C-alpha cells in the first residue's frame, strides 16, 4: 500500500510539494475508532431463531425502543448531559434508523417509559404487551475505567417473552453512534434475515450556488447523515467520490490543477496523490472489491477507455480499446467480472467483461440507454441509470434480464448500493433549477425517501459495512 505513495512521490514532485490548501483540502478528519465486542451474559437463547421472509408480514412490526439505561448517571465526553442522556440518544438513533428503513413501526424513547438498569435483562413484560409492542429493544450505557463506553443491546419478542438477540459494544465516546448503528444492524438483521447496513458511511458531493457557478465539495457522512464533514474547501470542483473498501481512502475527481483528474485522498493524513502520473484527463474512479486494484477511465486525444492499476502502483493495463467512450465500470463482488458503459454501438449501453478485459459483451437491449452500472454487493443485480426520455434508477440481472425501474424522477442518476444490496441511493436533479439531492429507494421501489444533507448533494457513494 505504501509503495504507491512512494512511487507517486518520485513521479509527482509538484503534487507533494503543494500544500493542502493549494489542493483545496480541508483539515484531516481522521478515521475514527474501532468497535470492540463486549461479552454479554447469555440467557438460554431458546430455539426461536426462525427468519421472517415475507415482507408483508414484517413490514408493520411494532418495535418499542425505550431509552437505554445508565447504571449511574455519569459525565461522558459523548454527551454534555451525562450517560443517562446518552442512553436516550442511542435509542433515538436506533428508532430513526428503523423508521427510515420503511419496514418497521418503531416507537422511540420520547413516548415510552424509561426502564431501570435492572430491567434491561429482565423486561417488565406486562407494561410492553399493554402498549401493543411486538418487539422490544432495551439496552444500557456504562462508562468503562479505560475511558471508553460500553453499550449493551437486547432484542426481545414481547408476545413470547423471549430474548431474540443480545450484543455489547465498546467504543470511544466519540464513536457512540457506531454502537447505536451496530445495535440497529443486529435488530434489522434478526427481523428481516438480511445482512446489516446501518454501520456504514457515504461519500458524496455537496453542492451550493447558482446553476452556472455551482460549488462542488467532497463530503462524507454516516449512513444516517450524522458526523457530516466537508473534505475539500470548494475552490476546485470535486466530483464522483468512491470510498475504499476499508474506509481509509477516497478516490474522487478534482479540477484542482485545472484539469479533471482522479486523486486518491488518504483520510487519516488528509493528503492526496494522483491515481496515475499522466497528462491526460482521468475520470470515473472505482475500487476492486478487495481494495487491491483501481479502475479508472482516461481520455487520450478525446477517446476514453478503461484502465486498471494496482493500488501499490505500477503499470496501468488498458482494458478497453474501442473508438467509443468506454467509462465507469463496477466489479462483481467476487472480482471476476466488470460491468461498464460504452457508446460503441452508437448510444450508451451496458457491457460486461472479464476482469482482464476479455469477453466484452453487451447486456442491455431494452429501449433506451444504460449508464452508470453498479454491481450489487450480493452479486445478483446490477443497478444503473436508465435513460428513456427521463432518467430513472433501474435494476436488472447481470445478464441484462428482468429490468425493473425503481424511481420516476425527471433526472435520477448514479445509483450506489447499500452494503447489503437491498437499498439503493442516487441523486435526483430538479428541472430548470439544477438543484440536486440524495434519495434512497429499496428494491421493492415502494420505500423511497430523501436523505437530509446540509446543502444540495449529488454523486452518493455508499461504503461497505464497517468492521
Amino acid at each position, binding site marked *: 500500500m505504501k509503495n504507491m505513495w512512494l512511487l507517486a512521490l518520485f513521479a509527482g514532485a509538484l503534487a507533494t510539494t503543494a500544500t493542502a490548501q493549494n489542493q483545496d483540502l480541508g483539515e484531516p478528519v481522521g478515521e475514527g475508532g474501532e468497535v470492540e465486542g463486549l461479552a454479554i451474559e447469555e440467557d438460554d437463547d431458546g430455539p426461536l431463531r426462525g427468519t421472517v421472509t415475507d415482507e408483508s408480514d414484517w413490514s408493520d412490526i411494532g418495535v418499542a425502543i425505550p431509552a437505554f439505561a445508565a447504571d449511574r448517571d455519569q459525565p461522558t465526553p459523548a454527551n454534555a448531559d451525562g450517560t443517562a442522556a446518552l442512553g436516550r440518544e442511542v435509542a433515538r438513533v436506533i428508532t430513526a434508523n428503523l423508521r427510515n428503513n420503511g419496514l418497521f413501526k418503531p416507537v422511540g424513547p420520547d413516548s415510552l417509559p424509561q426502564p431501570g438498569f435492572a430491567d434491561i435483562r429482565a423486561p417488565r413484560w406486562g407494561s410492553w404487551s399493554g402498549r401493543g409492542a411486538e418487539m422490544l429493544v432495551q439496552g444500557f450505557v456504562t462508562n468503562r475505567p479505560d475511558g471508553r463506553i460500553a453499550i449493551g443491546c437486547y432484542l426481545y419478542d414481547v408476545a413470547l417473552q423471549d430474548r431474540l438477540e443480545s450484543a455489547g459494544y465498546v467504543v470511544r465516546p466519540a464513536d457512540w453512534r457506531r454502537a447505536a448503528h451496530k445495535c440497529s444492524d443486529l435488530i434489522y438483521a434478526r427481523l428481516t434475515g438480511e445482512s446489516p447496513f446501518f454501520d456504514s458511511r457515504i461519500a458524496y458531493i455537496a453542492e451550493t450556488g*447558482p*446553476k*452556472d457557478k*455551482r460549488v*462542488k465539495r467532497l463530503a462524507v457522512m454516516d449512513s444516517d447523515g450524522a458526523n457530516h464533514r466537508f473534505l475539500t474547501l470548494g475552490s476546485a*470542483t470535486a*466530483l*464522483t467520490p468512491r470510498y475504499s473498501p476499508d474506509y481509509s481512502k477516497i478516490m474522487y*475527481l478534482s479540477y484542482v490543477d*485545472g*484539469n*479533471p483528474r482522479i486523486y486518491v485522498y488518504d483520510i487519516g493524513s488528509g493528503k492526496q496523490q494522483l491515481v496515475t502520473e499522466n497528462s491526460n*484527463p482521468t*475520470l*470515473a474512479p472505482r475500487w476492486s472489491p478487495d481494495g487491491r486494484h483501481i479502475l479508472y*477511465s482516461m*481520455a*487520450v*486525444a*478525446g*477517446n*476514453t477507455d478503461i484502465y486498471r492499476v494496482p493500488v501499490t502502483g505500477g503499470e496501468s493495463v488498458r482494458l478497453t480499446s474501442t*473508438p*467509443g*467512450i468506454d*467509462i*465507469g465500470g463496477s466489479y462483481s463482488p467476487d472480482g471476476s467480472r466488470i460491468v461498464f*458503459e460504452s*457508446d460503441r454501438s452508437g*448510444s*450508451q449501453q451496458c457491457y460486461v467483461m472479464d476482469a482482464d478485459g476479455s469477453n466484452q459483451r453487451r447486456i442491455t437491449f431494452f429501449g433506451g440507454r444504460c*449508464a*452508470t452500472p453498479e454491481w450489487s454487493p450480493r452479486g445478483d443485480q446490477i443497478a444503473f*441509470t436508465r*435513460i428513456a426520455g427521463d*432518467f430513472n434508477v433501474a435494476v436488472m440481472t447481470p445478464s441484462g434480464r428482468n429490468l425493473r425501474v425503481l424511481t420516476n424522477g425527471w*433526472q435520477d*442518476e*448514479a445509483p450506489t448500493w447499500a452494503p447489503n444490496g437491498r437499498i439503493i441511493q442516487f441523486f435526483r*436533479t430538479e*428541472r*430548470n433549477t*439544477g438543484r440536486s439531492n440524495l434519495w434512497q429507494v429499496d428494491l421493492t421501489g415502494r420505500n423511497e425517501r430523501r436523505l437530509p444533507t446540509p446543502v444540495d448533494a*449529488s*454523486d452518493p457513494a455508499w461504503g461497505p459495512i464497517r468492521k
Partner: protein
Amino acid sequence: MNSMKTSLILVVSATALAACAKKPPEELPPAPVTTPAPAPAPAPTAASGPTVGSQQHFEQAVGGSTVIYFDTDRFNIDSADAAALQAQAQYFARYPELTFTVEGHADERGTREYNLALGERRANSAKNYLVSLGVASNRIRTVSYGKERPVALASTEAAWAQNRRAASIIIN
C-alpha cells in the same frame, strides 16, 4: 512506446471521426490555410480598442465565432462549426504568440461521467480541426467540463443546444 500508442490512438480516433461525419465529402477539413507571413506587427492601434491577447479582441476579430455547437451526443464538425473554426484558425495564424484552451461542454441531459468524456471528445474534435487548418497542436490545450458549467440555465431544448459546445478561450 507511449508516443507510438498515442499516435495509434490518434489514427483510430481520426478514423472514427470520419466515420461519424454526416456528409463526409463536405466535412473533410479544407486544405490548411496558408500561414500569412509572420505578422506585419499589428499597427499599434488606438488605445481604446481591446488589446491583442484578450478574449474580447479574439471575439471581435472572429465575429463572435469563438464557440461551436453540437447535436445531442455528437461531436462532429458541421459546416457552421467549420466556418467558425476557420475564422479562429486565421486569427491564431495572425497572432502566433497566442495560446488558447478549447473547453468541451455537454448539456445536462446526460450522466455526469459520460458527459465529461463527451466534452473531452468535443474539445478534441475542435482541436483536431484547428490543427488540420495549420494551428500548431502545442498551442491548443483542451479541457472538458462535462455538464458542470452550463451557459444557458433553463431545462429546455434551446438551452441544451447552447450548452453542447466547444469554446475557445485565450490563455494570456
